[in-house]
Every structure is written in C-alpha cells, then in structure tokens.
C-alpha cells in the first residue's frame, strides 16, 4: 500500500477532494453515540463507501478524509477497504486527517489550511454526500470562471428538483438569485422560516440585467473550491459551516472581493447528502431504485425480496411476518406475525413475535420483545431492549442510563427515552418545526403550505376583495388534534401520550393556550358527531368523554380554560344546525356533573351570549335549572 500511495502523492497535479465526515450535530442520536455518521449503514453499506466510490468515479485522485470523532473505527474501516482492494482504492488515495480539537466544519477547514495539503482547486464534500456526478467537467468550468472572475472562490453544485419532491429536504430549502453567468447574488435557506415575504437588495436587480430567482434546487452538498477558500475560513473565525461561508462572502463582497458561483445539474446527474433521518430515508429509497447509478448498494450482499424489502446476510424471517418497504441488516431475526412497514432494522437485531414496527429505525443488536409496538419516528439506539407489550412512539431510545433522568423516561432495563434539551427558549417554535422536518417522512402532506395572497398584506386594498380563508396554522393544528384523538380512541392509547402529542403539535404550529383548550374540546365534540344521531348516540358520546377524562382534566384547569371549553361547545352547537337542545343540555350537564366546568363559569359564559340567538334559548333551560338548584340548596342550608 505504501508504495502505491507514494506514487500517487508524487503525481504533481492530482485532483484533490476533502471530505469532512463529522456532522457536528445531534440529528442521529442516539445511534451516533456508537456508530460514526460515516459508518452508518445505508442499504447495508456504510455511507462513506458511497461517498468514496462517487469521488473516485468522479475523477478524484487524492482525498483527505477529515475526522474528529470515532477516529479508530474510521481508520480501521478505510484500511479494511484498502486490504479488500475495493474499486475506489485503485485510482484514488485516501489520507485520513485527524484532529480531535475541531468543533465545527469550519474548524476542520482551518486545520487543513494550516496543514497545507491542498495545491489547487479542489472538491469539498460535506458529510454523508452521495452522488454520481462527474466532477472533472465541473472543475474545468470552475477553472474557466476563475479566469474571468479572479475573485471566484466557490462553485456550489445544485441539482434541479421540483418543489415538494421527496428528495428535497424541507429543512434545506434554498432560494437563490443568480445572474446570467451563474454568480450567486443572494442565497437564503427557507427551511424553518415562515416569512411571508422575502426581501432582496434592490441593487442586485439594477446591476444585472437579468436575475434568476430559483427555488427549484436541491443542494448536493458538493462544492468546487478555489485555493482561496481555506485561507478565507482561517481569516474568518465565525464561519462555522459552508452556508456561513456563502453568506459571509455575499455580505462582505466588497471587503473580501470574493464571489460564489452556482452550477445547476439536470437530467440523470444526482446528488444529495444524508443529513438527517428524512434524507436517510429518501436516499435509501433512491439507492434502492438505482437513481444514483452507477453508485449503488451491493448486489451480492443483499437479498431483494418482494414488497420493497431488502435483507442482509443470514436474516431469518418467519413466514407469517408481514413486511413492507423495510431494509434489514445482517443476522436479523423476525418472529411470527410481525408487522413491519417503512422502517429500517439494523444488523444483529431480534424482533420477537407479534411486534408492530412502523416508520421507525431499530438500531443494531436490539431486542424487541413480544407484542411491542414501535411507531412514528422512533429511533432505537444500539443494544436497546424493548420489554413485552411496550408501546413506543416518536421517541429516541438508548440502552444506557443517561445522567439526568425523569422516571417517566425509563422504558425498561436497557431502554431509556432520550430527551434532547433545547436551550434556546425563544426558538422553540423553529426548533420544533426543524425537528419535525428532519424526522422520517411520515405524512405526505407535511410540505404543503398554505397558498395565500402574500401581496395583499401590504397593499392598501382599494376595495374589499375577499380571499379564501387559507388553511392557517391553527387550522392545521386542529386537524392534527382530531387525528391524534381519533387514533388514540380507536387504538386505546394512553391519554398521557395523547397530551404529549397535542402539546408537541401546539409548539409546532405556535398555537396559544386558549386556542389549545378551545380546539381540544371542539375536536372531542366533533368526533362524537361522526356517530349516527340515533338513540345510541348519547351513550357513545358519554363513552368518548369518559375515555378522554385525563385530557379534559389536564386542560380545564382554571376558569378561563373553562370559558374556552364552553366557547367550543357554543361553536360546535351553532355550526351544526341539526344539534338539538337535548345535545346542548347533555353536554353542559356532563361537564358540570363531572366538575370539568364550574357553575360560575357557566353563568359567566351565559351572560355573554347573544340573547336573541337560538343558542341562547337552548342554553337557557340548563342555566335556569342551575339557578333553581342553587336557590334550593341555599334554602336548604337555612
């Protein structure tokens, strides 16, 4: 090996690339505690293998692999590949560069700058990148640009991709303005912002006769860099990521005198990076379907079964198991009557009988015992053991006991729920949304945004143009609450879990406490209306309310919450014409009897009602009764 490597290094102008393999974030917790991001199996092959294969196919001759954590594992892996004489080792030399002190992507590049390994233009690859792009023409193009524009520091590579395509990570949505020669004039990540307007500096339009505004792009996480890039990182200590770099260059264009260009690929050229579970999911899918040909998962190692199931070596699957769109590692054992869909099962994991797993990731060496359910975005870390009949939903689970632990988060001897502490309270909404966007792709309509009239806000409307009420956040919140409750009632889920679910959607949609109270009650009542209005109806309604008692208790804590609740009753009753006085009576009676609302609250609310309304008449008998009862009781006291 050493002889060969010397030969390659001596080659004067070898085409060079840098891969930074650490992500410096917690997207893949708890799995990333045990497995470095680079060695995370993607269709049963470590991610780094795809990246290296792509680089060698793309024409790179020397690669610097920069790693800060799990150094030994990565070094060992690279050595093993060289021993096995993997294809890429034949044309490309890989140098593992180590620095344990780096805390960000920017630090890594500063470190590399100090080491001075790089000679000319090079390719910069962010962690987890998988692609089939031929890099040499792109390098050539960048070189041509630098001949015209001496300040050209970087060419960002994008892939054209329609809005809402699954391969676009909603967190990385980018809006870019370029001039006719591809120079980037404006670059903004739209991911977690909910701004209704985007502001552009006017001068970019006046200085360039045509400006392209593009929102149909997917970041490939590949960039072609001039030698100036590394010193620029060294000079600007606040550059932590590549996006910081781009932003910094655009902001200080006059000072730094540096420019950024873009290149948009079309057709069969594919690029993307595994940055979170959602992109993990889409890239698995795309690799499986050979979108990234010739880069592809190992054909020998995997068995391709029906219903989009892939299994590694020595997998044991019982005949009665129902599998759909599952990728399994080596030595996986699947028991009888197991139902797994849209999930990933890593190597050496055992799933016992009658287990349901859906939209989840089960890490290596796990044991999922009988009749458990693992649902909706759950991630099990290495060696987790899920006890019998356990229910886990949307949780990160690890096998070792964390330092600080709430008793609720203990799921078993080797299963502890991991709660990520978010220290930035003001960003809570953004963070919750960001989390949501980086989870597995669960709901097809998640990316759908309300299409409302962004112009009308500032425009002083000449006349009262009516617009359709756009599905706003509260409305989305409401439908989500209904969904949660319906599912909870049907599957007999614990109300505590439902409360958690409702609260998390509350943060995601930025809904006030009052609205939460209002919509939760409204949702329960609306659910009851799905039943036929027969004689059975009221017993059904009672059963429903009975089931949700913990939820009602949780939300109806004070008088203002009770008023919200009563308003919900009013809202439902007035918007459904076929609801009779009997219904109103029954609901109020029930809430009153079970102490969800107090007499004072009811009377206070009653006084706010419109006296002429039909609804007022419907409530009247009940309040009359209340007052009578009070008088009676007070007279009794005497």
């Amino acid at each position, binding site marked *: 090996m050493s002889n060969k490597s010397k030969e390659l290094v001596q080659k004067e102008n070898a085409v060079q690339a840098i891969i930074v393999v650490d992500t410096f974030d917690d997207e893949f917790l708890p799995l990333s505690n045990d497995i470095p991001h680079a060695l995370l199996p993607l269709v049963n092959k470590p991610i780094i293998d795809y990246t290296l294969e792509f680089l060698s196919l793309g024409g790179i001759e020397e690669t610097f692999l920069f790693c800060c954590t799990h150094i030994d594992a990565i070094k060992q892996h690279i050595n093993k590949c060289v021993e096995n004489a993997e294809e890429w080792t034949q044309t490309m030399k890989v140098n593992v560069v180590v620095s344990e002190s780096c805390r960000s992507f920017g630090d890594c590049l500063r470190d590399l700058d100090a080491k001075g390994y790089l000679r000319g233009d090079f390719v910069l690859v962010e962690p987890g990148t998988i692609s089939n792009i031929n890099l040499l023409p792109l390098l050539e193009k960048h070189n041509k640009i630098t001949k015209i524009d001496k300040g050209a520091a970087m060419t960002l590579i994008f892939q054209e991709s329609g809005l809402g395509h699954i391969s676009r990570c909603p967190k990385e949505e980018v809006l870019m303005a370029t001039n006719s020669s591809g120079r980037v004039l404006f670059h903004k990540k739209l991911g977690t912002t909910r701004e209704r307007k985007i502001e552009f500096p006017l001068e970019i339009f006046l200085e360039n006769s*045509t400006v392209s505004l593009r929102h*149909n792009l997917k970041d490939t996480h590949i960039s072609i860099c001039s030698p100036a890039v590394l010193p620029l990182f060294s000079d600007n200590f606040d550059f932590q990521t590549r996006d910081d770099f781009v932003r910094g260059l655009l902001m200080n264009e006059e000072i730094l005198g540096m420019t950024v260009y873009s290149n948009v690929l079309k057709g069969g050229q594919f690029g993307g990076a595994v940055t979170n579970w959602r992109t993990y999911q889409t890239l698995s899918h795309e690799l499986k379907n050979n979108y990234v040909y010739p880069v592809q998962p190992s054909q020998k190692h995997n068995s391709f079964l029906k219903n989009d199931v892939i299994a590694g070596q020595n997998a044991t699957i019982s005949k009665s198991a129902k599998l759909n769109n599952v990728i399994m590692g080596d030595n996986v054992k699947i028991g009888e009557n197991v139902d797994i869909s849209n999930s990933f099962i890593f190597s050496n994991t055992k799933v016992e009988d009658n287990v349901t797993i859906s939209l989840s990731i089960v890490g290596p060496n796990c044991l999922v015992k009988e009749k458990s359910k693992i649902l909706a975005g759950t991630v099990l870390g290495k060696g987790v053991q899920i006890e019998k009949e356990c229910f886990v939903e949307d949780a990160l689970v690890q096998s070792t006991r964390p330092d600080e632990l709430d008793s609720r988060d203990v799921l078993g001897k080797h299963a502890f729920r991991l709660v990520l502490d978010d220290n930035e309270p003001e960003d809570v909404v953004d963070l919750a949304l960001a989390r949501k966007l980086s989870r597995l792709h669960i709901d097809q309509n998640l990316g759908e945004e309300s299409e409302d009239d962004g112009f009308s806000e500032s425009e002083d409307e*000449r006349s009262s*143009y009516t617009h359709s009420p756009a599905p706003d956040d509260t409305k989305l919140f409401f439908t989500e609450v209904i969904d949660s409750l319906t599912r909870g009632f049907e599957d007999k889920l614990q109300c505590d879990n439902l409360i958690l679910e409702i609260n998390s959607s509350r943060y995601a949609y930025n809904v006030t406490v009052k609205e939460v109270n209002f919509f939760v009650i409204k949702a329960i009542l609306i659910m009851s209306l799905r039943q036929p209005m027969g004689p059975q109806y009221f017993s059904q309604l009672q059963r429903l309310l009975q089931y949700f008692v913990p939820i009602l208790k949780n939300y109806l804590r004070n008088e203002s919450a009770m008023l919200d609740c009563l308003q919900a009753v009013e809202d439902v009753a007035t918007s459904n014409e076929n609801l009779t006085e009997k219904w109103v009576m029954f609901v109020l009676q029930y809430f009153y009897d079970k102490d969800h609302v107090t007499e004072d609250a009811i009377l206070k609310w009653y006084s706010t009602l419109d006296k002429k309304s039909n609804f007022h008449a419907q409530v009247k008998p009940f309040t009359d009764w209340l007052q009578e009862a009070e008088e009676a009781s007070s007279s009794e006291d005497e």
Partner: protein
Amino acid sequence: MTLQAEFQAVVLAAGRGSRMSEVTTGIPKCLLPIGPKPLVWYSLYKLQCAGFSDVIMIVLENEKSEIHSVLEKTNLDIKIDYVCVSEKDEDLGTAESLKLINDKLTSDVLVVSCDFVTDVDFKGVLDIFRMHNASVASLLVQPQPNEVFVVPGPKSKHKPERDLIGIDTQTNRLVFLASASDFETDFSLPTSLLKKHTHIKIYSNLIDSHVYVLKNWVVKYLKSEDSFTSIKGELLPHIIKKQLSKPPKPVNTNTSVINTGDNGDIFAFSKEDELDINIRNTSSYNDHTGDLKPTYHEDSIRCYAHIAPKENFGVRVNTLPSYWWINNKISEKWPQITGDRLEFVPVHPKADVKSNQVDNKCVIWEGAKLNEKTSFKNSIICSNTEVCSFSRVFNSIIMNNVTIKEKVAIENCIICDGATIEGGCQLKNCIVGSHHTVSEQSEHTNEVLTESDRLMEF
C-alpha cells in the same frame, strides 16, 4: 350580420408628450415627423400588417382634424374610427381612456400606444395570448446597444426609467411588474409566489412596449372599477398580483350562483367557461412541470409576456433622446419595419428640390422648398418648409412650415413647426420652439430657443 372580430385594435394617441415638451408644444405628439412619416403612422402600419382592417384611435378633440388630415395623405388602408377626448380632461390616464370606449369593445382588445416604433410583428404577442387563453399579454422588447448621440438642447444626463419585470422561465407567465423607482433599497416578493413559480427571471433592462392584449373581461372589469388611471401603472400590476390569489370559495352553493355576477370581485369577471375547464382537466397537457399542480395552477387570471427576439428593435418615442435616436436610424431600419413591402422614398415627388447638395440620408417631405445653393446632410425637411440660398442644414430635423433665410448654418438641431430662422444665424445643438423667430446674425449652441411664455403652459 358581420362576424365578430377576434381582436379589436385601439391606438392611444391622446398623449401630450409631456416628457419632451420642448418639441411637442406646437404639434400633436403623434404627428412628430419620423423619417418620411408621422409617428403614429408606424403603429397604424404595424396593425395593418398584422391584418387589422379597423382601428379605434383615441385623440384629443382639438387635434383631431389635424391628425385626420395628415393621415389622409399617408395612404393607409386601415379604417380609423376617431374617438375624441376633451382637452379639458387634463392628463387622462390610459386606463381611463380605455374606459371611455368601453361600449365599443366587444372582443378581446389589442392596445397600442401611438409612440411605439418597432419592427416586431404583433403576431408573437397575439399568439401567446391565444395559446394560453390569457387574461393579459404584454410585449417586451430587448434593449438596443448603447450609442452615443449628441442630443440637441442643453446638456443633460438622461436617466432612462427602468422596470423590474418577473417572468416564469418555464411558462412565460408574467408574475411581477413594477417600476424600479418604486423601491428604495429592498425589493420583496411573497414567499408564496416563489413557491408557485420556482424559477423566475427578473429583468431590469427590457423595454415595455405598451402593447397589451387584454381579454374582454379585463375591459369590463376596468369599467366597474373607478380607481385605475393608467394601464401600466395600476391596472396591470393589479391583475398580475391577483394571479396569486384564489377566488373566494362560495360559502353556500345556493346563494353564490345568484351573487357572483355583481359582487364586483375580479374573479367574478375572470370566470372561465365550464367547458374550457372541463376540456383542460381531461387533457393531459400541463403548462409546467416540477410540481404536481394542475395546469395553470387552476388560475383563471393568467398574464403572459412575449419577449421579442434580440434582432428586433422597438423604441418608445416619449423622450427627446429616443426621438433623436429613431430619426437617426429610420432609414436604416425602414426595410425591417415595413418588411420590404414599402419602398423608402426619401424625397417626396411634390417637393421642390433645387439644391444639388442633398445627400442620400435626407428625407424631404411634400411641399418643401429647397432653393439653389443650399446644402443638406442627414436631415429631415418637412412639409411647406422653405430653405433659402447659401444655407446649410446638417443632422437636423426641420418640421413643417419653417422658414430658413439666407446664410444660415444649422447643425444637430430640431426646428419646430412654424419657426423662422433669420439670415446669418448659426445654430448648433439647439431646439427652436414652434413659431419662434431666431433673430438675425445670432449664434447659439446647446440651447432651447422658445418664447418663454409658451413653455410656461407646461
């Protein structure tokens, strides 16, 4: 019974030319001489070439007879229906003029400004309108390479107005239109627009020709709304913005059927034919790719832009520099403009030319009298103008009924209607206002010479 025409053409010729008042005081703007023809002739001729047999022309009342008599002599086949607007209506906007003739407009409308000289065929913009059953289609022209001309009059820095025009690259939808001067430092677009049209090109150098094709409902909508004064400034931006809105959903299907007609909402006007919608929904055609949205995003309001090819030119003669530019170029551009169907006749047969120093770039109108021993280069001499002996005129525009006495030297000047240049004058880079008399033996450079009280009016 006659067949309903597909399009009706309207020429807006009631403008006063307030941006070039130095030369438009004594002459209707639309009759400014350009080469051998008055300005409005070029718009009318283009319409005639596009196949129009009739045109409605909006003119100022006091100018009508003059315009009529001038156009009579130009041998146009197109039938002109003059509609007068009273000169008392100060600065009647383009949208307001269109509103005046609302009753005459029964088809879709092609609106042309009288000051647009071009070699672009109107077919392009009409076709894109037809193709997408558009609400509005607009014709845009690419800018001409910059050339340096010395424009007569005081030296001033001319700053052209710039528009910001946003066009979807895939569909040619016109998604944004505003004047660059409306913004100070920042320019904002709604996020929803960027999500709907994911690849927009914003142009800041295109010339809006003020040629618009309007669906008939737009004219009807214009009538019902009082607030629009100009097409470019208000009506068009409004309709373009409305593309992003969705029509209000009928709250109750029983009542909405009756109410839609008269609630004044733009969507009540833009409503498409049920059959058209059905045909579109059943067809596999889609105007865009990249998302899974239906054809045209189900918009009933659709605005399009047609950008003329680079080799074509178009110029709006509404400023002195553009007027000067087109006069210098007209003989060169003539074959393109007329499509070689009309011969360029520089010297009218009824002109009285005794001079033997008239170069081939000169244009001499009917009734002009050029005496012996005069010299002309690259100039336009209009009707009934007399130039006496021993005078020379270089690179200049001499309008109608001008008298130029002996031993006068005129270079790079515009001499307006009825002016008199007395003997021995030397004028360079000057504008002489209408009916002004330049006194004997005077010398002027880079000046506007006019009776000051005449200019005061404007």
